[in-house]
Structure formats: structure tokens, C-alpha cells
């Protein structure tokens, strides 16, 4: 009887599994690099918003809705909280990062004397 030499199913499955694992690792790393960069840019946008609010609080001025709209345009689910006591206001900005994680940054600001 003629003997046929061929790959077994197990050998093929192992090869395909290795290709799949390598592709998965490379794909995940690239995706993380992209999301990490995007998250960094979003963090800068959030810090600009935080600094803008801090500037207003320290000067006792009201925010301009048009400016705020531009600042938060690329920040999903963004929220700004003011928590004040004894002339110090703690500003906290919260937003959702591209990975879905909720990120926050806070800043304590001295309120301008005489402002409500």
C-alpha cells in the first residue's frame, strides 16, 4: 500500500493557533498605542477646560457658553464639578477616555475675594 505523507489535523491546528495568537498580540498592541495617544490628546483638552474654569473662578468671572461648548466638543460625557469652602474651590473635570475608562483631574483654586 502506498504511504501518504501529509500534515495531521493537530499540526495544522497548532500552526493556525500560533498565527492567530501573534496576530492578536500585534493587533492589541497597535490598538493600545492608538487609544493611548488619543487619550493623551483628550487629557490635554480636559486640562485646558480645567484651567479655563480655574481662571474664571480666581478672577470671579462667569463662563462664556460658546467657549465652553468649543472646549468640551471632543470630550465625551464631560462634567465639571465645583466644590468650594473657605474661599478655596476644588474643580474636578470628569470625562470618558477612548478605552471607555472614566478619567478625572482636579485643581484647587483660591476664589477671588468678594465673589459669591
Amino acid at each position: 500500500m502506498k504511504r501518504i505523507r501529509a500534515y495531521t489535523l493537530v499540526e495544522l491546528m497548532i500552526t493556525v493557533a500560533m498565527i492567530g495568537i501573534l496576530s492578536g498580540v500585534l493587533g492589541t498592541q497597535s490598538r493600545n498605542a492608538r487609544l493611548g495617544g488619543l487619550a493623551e490628546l483628550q487629557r490635554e483638552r480636559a486640562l485646558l477646560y480645567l484651567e479655563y474654569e480655574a481662571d474664571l473662578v480666581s478672577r470671579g468671572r462667569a463662563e462664556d457658553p460658546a467657549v465652553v461648548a468649543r472646549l468640551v466638543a471632543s470630550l465625551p460625557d464631560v462634567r465639571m464639578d465645583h466644590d468650594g469652602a473657605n474661599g478655596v474651590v476644588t474643580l474636578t473635570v470628569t470625562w470618558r477616555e477612548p478605552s471607555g475608562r472614566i478619567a478625572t483631574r482636579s485643581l484647587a483654586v483660591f476664589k477671588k475675594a468678594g465673589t459669591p
Partner: protein
Amino acid sequence: MSRRAFTLAELAICLSVAALITPIVFHFGSALQDQHAIGLWHLQSADGVRTFAEELRLDAHRPGRLADDGVGWTDGSCEIRYRVTDARVLVRDAPADCGGSRAIATDVQTVSHVPGGVEVTFLKRLRPDRETRATVFLPVEGR
């Protein structure tokens, strides 16, 4: 003497499989490279935004005002201008006694004065047919 060699059918199958796999691998590799390049470009843009924000903060404390045409400050003695060069570099042009000229960010497409502040658009050309943009608003007015 027995000679074991590939048959024409085996070679044809191998070439067909290689021809099928090559574009898939090439496409997958390009996509990975693009994602990596976009990630790095975003990091670099974030760095540029931070530098530009600091420059604007310092200039906003000058006695002059934000110029209506283009982006810059004028107060008589100092003429500060932000502009994008042909090499897509955002630069600050100013005399030496007003802080001097320096490069601020790279891969910048435009910088413009908008109500309430300045808008800067970063542009990355990955390939001739593929590019990506990010626009950041930096508040200035009222400082």
C-alpha cells in the same frame, strides 16, 4: 534512482496560496503601522498643545490684545505672531525683547483666531491617500 520532486500541481497550489496571503498580510501590516503612527502623532500633538497653551498663557499677560487678523498680540512695542510654516511647523515670531522666535509644534495644518480663543488643527499624512486631523481649541479671551 528515485527522485522526489514537487509536482506542478503542488507548486501551483503553493503559488496560489502565497498570492492569496500576501495582500492580506500587507493590508494587516499597513493597518498596524497606521495605528501605531496615529498613536505617536496624537502624543506629539498633545505635547504641542501643551507648549502652545503655555506660550499663549504667557503672552496673554502682556498689556496688548489678541490681534483681529491672524493670531498674535500687538501692544505697540511688541508684535507677536503665531504662524504655520510651509513645513507645517507652528512658530512664534517676535523680537528678541518680546521673548524671541521659536518653534512650538509640528504637523500643524492651520492656526486661526476664533471667538474666545485660538484653534489649531494638526494634520498627519500617513500615505498620499490617507490623512488624519485633530482640532484643539485653546481659550484666550478674557485673560
